[in-house]
């Protein structure tokens, strides 16, 4: 049977009952990989934004004679061993390809720029099966230095890189492909964005979603270990950094302290509710505004109040992993109707899926679940390509 190119997910694979059926439905329902590719594009941009600013500081940050030199690594390992530190107190040192090249400044620079090139190809979707694996290796290699380790941001980079690697490797595995395509993966978005429903795409997205929810909830619960979160004044501290705030400046808020603390505590509690209640709304379509709106506000707050780079965009990308394929199509459909964005229509589901006999799914166009804005954008895009239209 000719495979459908429909954007619709395929059926749950096995008929089972109750929790088993839900489990199989959740994890093993093939979906259109468009969501995975959007995440890959956004995460690739984030990886580039993270790595590129280190240019010019490579020897200091990653060299064998850098901030943590070879002797420093040896001392750290010896200390962890002699003090018999438990796992949670051990410095987060892990394997890294950089250890092979960081003794030589030229080799380190070459590796760095090669890494930037690989991340650029990964972002563009060139040979994603290969570049996704390399992107993961790059991300974990450049986050291996315990001195530079930035738990809030680097954690998300590693999580995104890992699941995108799984997704990019698995997508299209069941397609009949020539060996080079099988090894490298099909290029996207150079070719069509919309592929046949993929089990691998669903698996990667589901793993990312669940892992992301674990991070957010754990992080929210961790905040409850500090009295300042309970009393709602946690945001006071990043808003009044010690070296940038004088006592007079802080006390200037005193005349309206009740309203000031009211706002701060309400914002702190809103953060806690959003994080701890995350699983309650993350998978609900009707509450997308809470999910995405919260991530956008979080990005703003993390950048402006906490001055934390990476975490805001990583948070947003993580939240976007919950957006389904047909929601992405709806977004593309709306965007493709804007002048200058018609090219987005090529990422919409193939209209052939609407024709009887190809997918053999929808005989009645009126009953088509493809949103009207997508169909309209498609037809507008075709019209704009027609001479004289």
């Amino acid at each position: 049977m000719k495979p459908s190119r429909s954007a619709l997910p395929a059926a749950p694979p096995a008929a089972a009952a109750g929790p088993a059926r839900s489990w199989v439905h959740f994890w093993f329902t093939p979906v259109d990989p468009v969501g995975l590719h959007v995440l890959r594009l956004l995460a690739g941009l984030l990886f580039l934004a993270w790595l590129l600013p280190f240019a010019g500081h490579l020897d200091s940050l990653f060299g064998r004679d850098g901030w943590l030199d070879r002797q420093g690594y040896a001392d750290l390992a010896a200390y962890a061993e002699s003090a018999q530190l438990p796992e949670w107190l051990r410095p987060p040192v892990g394997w890294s390809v950089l250890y092979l090249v960081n003794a030589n400044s030229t080799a380190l620079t070459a590796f760095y720029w090669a890494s930037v090139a690989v991340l650029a190809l990964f972002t563009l979707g060139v040979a994603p099966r290969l570049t996704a694996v390399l992107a993961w290796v790059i991300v974990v290699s450049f986050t291996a230095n315990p001195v530079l380790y930035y738990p809030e941001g680097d954690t998300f980079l590693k999580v995104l890189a890992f699941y995108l690697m799984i997704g990019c490797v698995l997508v299209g595995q069941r397609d009949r492909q020539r060996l080079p395509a099988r090894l490298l993966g099909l290029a996207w978005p150079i070719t069509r964005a919309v592929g046949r429903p993929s089990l691998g795409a669903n698996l990667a997205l589901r793993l990312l979603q669940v892992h992301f929810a674990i991070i957010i909830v754990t992080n929210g619960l961790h905040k409850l270990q500090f009295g300042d979160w309970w009393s709602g004044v946690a945001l006071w501290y990043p808003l009044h950094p010690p070296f940038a705030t004088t006592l007079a400046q802080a006390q200037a808020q005193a005349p309206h302290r009740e309203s000031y603390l009211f706002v701060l505590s309400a914002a702190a509690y809103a953060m806690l509710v959003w994080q701890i209640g995350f699983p309650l709304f993350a998978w609900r379509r009707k509450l997308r505004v809470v999910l995405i709106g919260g991530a956008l506000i979080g990005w703003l707050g993390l950048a402006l109040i906490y001055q934390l780079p990476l975490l805001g965009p990583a948070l947003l990308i993580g939240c976007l992993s919950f957006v389904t394929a047909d929601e992405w199509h709806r977004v593309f459909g709306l965007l493709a109707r804007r002048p200058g964005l018609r090219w987005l229509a090529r990422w919409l589901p193939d209209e052939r899926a609407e024709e009887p006999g190809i997918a053999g799914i929808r005989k009645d166009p009126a009953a088509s679940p493809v949103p009207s804005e997508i169909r309209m954008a498609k037809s507008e895009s075709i019209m704009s390509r027609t001479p004289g239209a």
Partner: protein
Amino acid sequence: MSPTPSQTTERVPRWLLIAGSVAIVFHLSAVVVRALAAPSGPWVSEMGPDTATPPQFAYTLDSLTSPYLKLIRLTDSYRFPSNRPGFSAVYLEVRLKDEAGQELATVRIPDEQANFWVRHRQTLLAHTLGNDQMVTLPPSELIPAPHQQVPQVVYWEPAANEPRHLHLARKSINEIDRNAPPPRPSDDALLLARSYARHLCRVHGAAKAEIIRHHKNPMPPAVLFWENVQAGAFDELLSFFGEFPR
């Protein structure tokens, strides 16, 4: 819950369902166990604020799954430092000197001239050196074994003439005041200070580097209600790590 079921009939082999399910359960369990296998707190205890150890089941299971997580480099416990409010602000001043002790250059970390992303990593470095701990004392005075000495501790001691200056000092653990144990730099902070000093000496051709930590405690929100605040209560504190050779 998305995605919605559809009408195509592609089937997944049963063996793949079972193998995939086992892999998913193992992987996510390892992630959850790692999140649980971290200390919590600090909580109120008889000995003052203290962290609580992780639950034994999580600790035991984590020891089994951590090789897997280390391999895929997902070993974080997701308890981010920024969750802890009221961190002190820290910057470092490093005075680079030649053999004769003449000052060659002074480096400040975080460097105001560095780009935002690099400056952020420099802030992380400075904070690692600012992560002081209290000296932990044994329950009773230690009596050394024959021909052995009582262990010594390195701690921060206020300078005699400078009110807000701290110097590193070393003393027998039995001589520490039990009623007011002093703070000390963490062990990894001392390791890192040495390593960073060596790095700067190499870069600037210096013989030794003196690291000075500038440190300022945050003002609590209670200042909004205080009428009179003691002068200098939130002034900068200077901690001298001493000179480190190249």
